């Protein structure tokens, strides 16, 4: 047991894989809620990179940054889902291409 010191590089590779899967989902899926979930997946991949680098450097600043990312993700999910509900009420669809209500 080394407290995860030898797991830093595999964790970074896992973070890369999750981020790329999230990017693919954002471009591939048509349902706006699934696109939103893929965004959450990408945020989690970045969190994993933060934690791995925090372990690698031996400092705790990465952990505090993950805390802030988590807070912003919660706020973003609340506002984003409210926008989705308002848009669905307006257009009666969840397709990403029809969500251009915020365009000026």
């Amino acid at each position: 047991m080394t407290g995860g010191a030898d797991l830093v590089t595999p964790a970074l590779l896992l973070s890369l894989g999750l981020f790329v899967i999230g990017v693919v989902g954002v471009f591939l899926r048509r349902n706006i809620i699934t696109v939103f979930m893929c965004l959450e997946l990408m945020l989690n991949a970045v969190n994993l990179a933060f934690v791995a680098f925090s372990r690698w450097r031996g400092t705790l600043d990465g952990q505090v940054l993950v805390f802030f990312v988590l807070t912003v993700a919660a706020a973003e999910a609340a506002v984003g889902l409210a926008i989705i509900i308002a848009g669905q009420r307006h257009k009666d669809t969840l397709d990403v291409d029809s969500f251009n209500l915020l365009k000026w």
Partner: protein
Amino acid sequence: MLDTIIAHSDQVVFYFFAATALLSALVVVGQRHPTYSAFALIVTLCSLSAVFGLLGSPFIAVLQVVVYAGAIMVLFLFVLMLLNVKREERVAGGGWALKVTAFALGAVLVVQVGSVLTAAARAPAAPGFNASTPYVARLLFSPTYLYVFEATSILILAALVGAVVLAKSDP
């Protein structure tokens, strides 16, 4: 045989949860029904929580389950149950030129991010590390991060008011 497995038990557990996270992330992206995607994402988040714990960060591991899998995903499921969500039918179109460009750009992204991440962690990791909750809290409430922490409370309040205003039905 058994001795080596026990000696590398944290690695075995890490690779198990890493594989679970990657597979369920693929299900999130490949699934056409958003409700199934949401459940697969919950599996991904819980496996990532285990990975955080193995990296020596119990505080983040607990936050991951409580905030992400608990609060945010429940919010997603509430919205999915509230709206009339159907399986999506239309697949992304585009000719072969677009597909080739997409694969090339995706490969560039993988190479770029992968080279940065692996090059950054080439040096050996720090030997000692204690990220238990008191230490993280001491840094969080130190003058470096205290004002940022207070600012996030204003952000949460703004998001709360904004969500209520946006989701309110029109009179």
